[in-house]
């Protein structure tokens, strides 16, 4: 028995061998399928109890989710584009937060589905379930035509953050512009890690999943709490500065045809909506402002275009350098490295992974080969990821340096969440439940802007006061 104890406490090969030897003396041989102790034959009429198991969720549930997602997106589109109702968007987001967040507990969401799709494309052994693919595609398709209505009210992560926007402060664009580069990195890394079968980092570090599961024992609950607390002051911090799916939605939304607009008719430049957006996604008119002189602008652009390939190559090289530490995140590579390190230095203590590998009796050579293969894929991926980021930075710099003239207040299409907050501020939209209180000086002033001749005349039928912003 002493040997068994030794075996359980500190496992070394020697004790294992001794145990096996000691046991061989008094136990019948029992490796593989044979059993050491024969099944008893009961005389008291004892019946074997059944091992009870609970069934998993059904697939029908997943199709229902796809249908509900489409329905929610359609309703959100109507609210954002057609009726321009902040109220509708708000209540829809509460409902979606309840269903997709707390009832469905956040899985599978389109943000995480990025990784399933990436893995499906790069790993031939993995086929993306059709429902997951649809969950990934449908919001993108909506974004392509109607803007990011998914962000407006369907996404549970967005909704929970949107709800806590209580005292938004406007971060200077100096800061937000830099931070808004992070999602590209996150997206690229998420795809790379999924494509090399290393892990789903986007899911793993999802800050709100702890909330959705109401799991008091999850460390991520506190990460989520941190995000929500930040979100009281800095509106939607995850959406703006981390969300990888937002990058894809933005790419689609940029070209959307029927995107939500601040004003349903012509902008009168009343500036009422100027501070209405807690995300700072409204571009001001810039006509009449001094512009960079043509010569220096062209020169700068030429420089930037020349820099673009340099940035791509530089980014690629850094990604390539980074691929080695990144690949160590992969369990196979990690194990292989550990084994090699232990062989180089016999004093190193075995880790759980190397010990298990030894125990399982797998081919070390095959592991090394596979680890190297993953490392190679990661290397290619590192070049691509770095190159992609170089490109993104280059294009961003070029974009900054080519300012299109703009005469109206307009939403920044790629970034705008279509939350419809600004709609209520537009006096041209008096038909659509604005945030104005009838007869108020503000209302009168606004009306004066739209219809100067009606000044000081309160509207007979005042639109209802809104309780939500």
């Amino acid at each position, binding site marked *: 028995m002493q040997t068994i104890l030794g075996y359980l406490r500190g496992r070394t090969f020697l004790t294992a061998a001794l145990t096996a030897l000691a046991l061989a003396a008094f136990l019948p041989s029992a490796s593989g399928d044979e059993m050491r102790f024969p099944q008893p034959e009961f005389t008291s009429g004892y019946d074997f109890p059944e091992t009870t198991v609970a069934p998993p969720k059904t697939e029908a549930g997943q199709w229902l989710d796809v249908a509900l997602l489409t329905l929610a997106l359609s309703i959100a589109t109507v609210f954002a584009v057609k009726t321009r109702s902040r109220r509708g968007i708000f209540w829809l987001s509460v409902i979606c937060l309840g269903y997709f967040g707390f009832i469905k507990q956040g899985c599978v969401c389109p943000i995480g589905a990025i990784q399933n799709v990436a893995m499906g494309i790069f790993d031939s052994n993995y086929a993306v379930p059709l429902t997951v693919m649809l969950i990934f595609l449908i919001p993108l398709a909506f974004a392509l035509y109607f803007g990011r209505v998914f962000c407006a009210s369907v996404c549970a992560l967005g909704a929970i953050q949107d709800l806590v926007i209580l005292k938004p402060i406007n971060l200077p664009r100096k800061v937000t512009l830099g931070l808004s580069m992070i999602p590209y990195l996150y997206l690229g890394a998420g795809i790379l890690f999924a494509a090399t079968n290393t892990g789903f980092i986007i899911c793993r570090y999802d800050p709100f999943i702890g909330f959705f599961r109401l799991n*008091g024992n999850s460390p991520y609950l506190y990460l989520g709490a941190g995000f929500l607390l930040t979100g009281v002051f800095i509106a939607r911090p995850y959406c703006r500065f981390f969300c990888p799916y937002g990058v894809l939605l933005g790419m689609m939304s940029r070209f959307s045809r029927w995107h939500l607009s601040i004003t349903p008719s012509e902008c009168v430049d009343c500036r009422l909506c100027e501070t209405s957006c807690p995300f700072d996604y409204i571009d001001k008119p810039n006509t009449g402002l001094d512009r960079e002189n043509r010569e220096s602008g062209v020169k700068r652009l030429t420089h930037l275009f020349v820099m673009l390939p340099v940035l791509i190559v530089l980014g690629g090289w850094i990604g390539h350098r980074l691929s080695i530490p990144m690949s160590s995140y992969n369990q196979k590579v990690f194990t292989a490295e550990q084994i090699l390190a232990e062989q180089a230095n016999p004093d190193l203590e075995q880790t759980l992974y190397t010990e298990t590998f*030894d125990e399982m009796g797998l081919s070390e050579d095959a592991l090394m080969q596979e680890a190297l293969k993953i490392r190679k894929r990661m290397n290619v991926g590192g070049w691509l990821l770095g190159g992609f*980021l170089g490109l993104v930075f280059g294009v961003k710099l070029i974009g900054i340096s080519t300012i299109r003239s703009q005469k109206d207040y307009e939403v920044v299409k790629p970034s705008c969440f279509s939350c419809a907050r600004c709609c209520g501020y537009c006096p041209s939209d008096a038909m659509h439940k604005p945030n104005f209180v009838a007869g108020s000086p503000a209302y009168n002033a606004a009306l004066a802007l739209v219809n100067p001749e009606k000044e000081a005349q309160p509207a007979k039928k005042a639109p209802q006061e809104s309780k939500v912003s």
Partner: protein
Amino acid sequence: MRIVEYQKNTAALPFQVLKGLGVASGIFSLVVCVLMIANTVNAKRADPIHSPALLKLKDDLNADRNNEALREEIRQLDLLTRRAFFTSHKFNRNAVFMLFGGLIVMVSSFKALEAYKARYFYPDSRQPKDDLIENAAWARKSVTAAGLVMVGFALILALPWKTTLDEEAIAPKNDAAAGGEGSNVAGQPEGVVEPAPSTPTTEPAAPAEPVVVASREEMVKNWPNLRGPVGGIVTMEKAPTAWDGESGEGILWKAKVPLTGFSSPIIWNDRLFLSGGDQTTRQVYCYGIEKGDLLWTFDVRGIPGSPDKAPKVSADTGYAAATMITDGFRVFAIFSTGDLVAVDFEGKQVWARNLGVPENPYGHSSSLELHEDILLVQYDQEEHSFVAGLDVGSGKDRWKVERKFGPSWASPLLHRSEGGNELILSADPKVVSYDPATGKELWSAECLKGGEVAPTPIHADGVFFAACDYVCVAAIDAKSHEVLWKGEDLIPGVSTPIVANGLLFGGLADGGLFCLDAKNGKEKWFEDSDDGFYASPLLINGKVYMMDREGVTHIFEAAGEFKSVAKPALGEPAVCTPAISGNSLFIRGVQNLYRIGS
């Protein structure tokens, strides 16, 4: 222009109530959150699986098993720990709902307040002072700064990172795999540190030029391998039966062997070869058989892939347990490090390679075999076990077959028959036969399951015998490959048995001689002895010579009844099988080498 802010009366009661509610629920949520964090930290401490106090108490109880007070203490502590664990989990499970409720109330209150504080209409009274040029400039700066931060992080992470896993590290394996007919090869754990191809160090022999090896006739005249050319059966003109190591009676010469090794001597004409080793050194010795003078010593060193320090082995195995073999032109020796060397008769290295450090808990001990110009190596270890046929001239793999077995300590048997030669290997759980020319598996018989196999399989009268300590000695029909019988009482644990006159003779590893009927495994006789048997017995002129671990050779008639002939003592412990040349016996004790006879 400036538009006046419209604001409801914030002094009104509903406003104050909402504000108070919002603040209160906010504070409540914060308190709950802090409590949850504290509780989580606490729960980590109350982990019932690794509670150090509980483990210590249980250890104490092991030392003092009847201590009632201690038992009571364990029970109390166990209950306490479990209660703390589950309470803390339950607390967090419930608290999260409180936190959630608090947050909902807080958010709703503040949302409702927004209706009172319509504080949005604040366009700056001044005209926008946006400067496009300036804005673009700092936008560029901002993006560039973000890029630089990312690059900085990336470089901090990437540059100091060192890895041992690269093409070079696994290159030796690739080479070996290429040389080994694409079969999977053993890991070369130490070899990976430095780029080391495991190809032979000397110029490989050109494949067109056949390597010359001694003929079978010459082999039979000599003692080229463990247990001799015909499986331990010898006739001598005058077999010695009486000697005494202490007095020197019957001993022609005695020579000290520099390094210990449990490999048995082999003899070619007038030369005797031995191997020995310790943690750091491995050597091959050549003695002249006439005078017992050490003709040369070959140091095994500088083999690519060979570890600096030999792997741990048990004292019973040592660093040079496997017996050497000679093809009449070269001698081959294998060591516990996985080093395999071919040395010519003048002590010059022909080739050397490392087969990968064996992962063998006691140490590698399988001796070498030879089929024509193919050197046969049984290399059973924890994983990547294999059997390989190597070219005697170059050491390159002729073939290599992976074996799905754990470690074994038995030596291979090359069974020569008219139907063709077979290479028989014993290991837990099977005896497997291979074609020695190609490595093709011919047949297998499962009979040794669940033990540690050390005795070499033997053949006699159309039957193979294999044994495994604590499991059985099994007889396998050489034609049908069926297991004819299994004897589970008397098992030669380490020493190889021998068959004569339809009888199987063996020695138990912990003492005792026995004889079984080779046809059915029935016990014929059992004779107690004080010391166990590790050395393999020989059958000389119809008498069994079986030496125990103390060096006493039990000589008895190969008959159905025990009849002792003599019990001469070597005077020192010995575990090696004797070698025979002419009328002399050559026995290696743990310290010395003896020539016995005339």
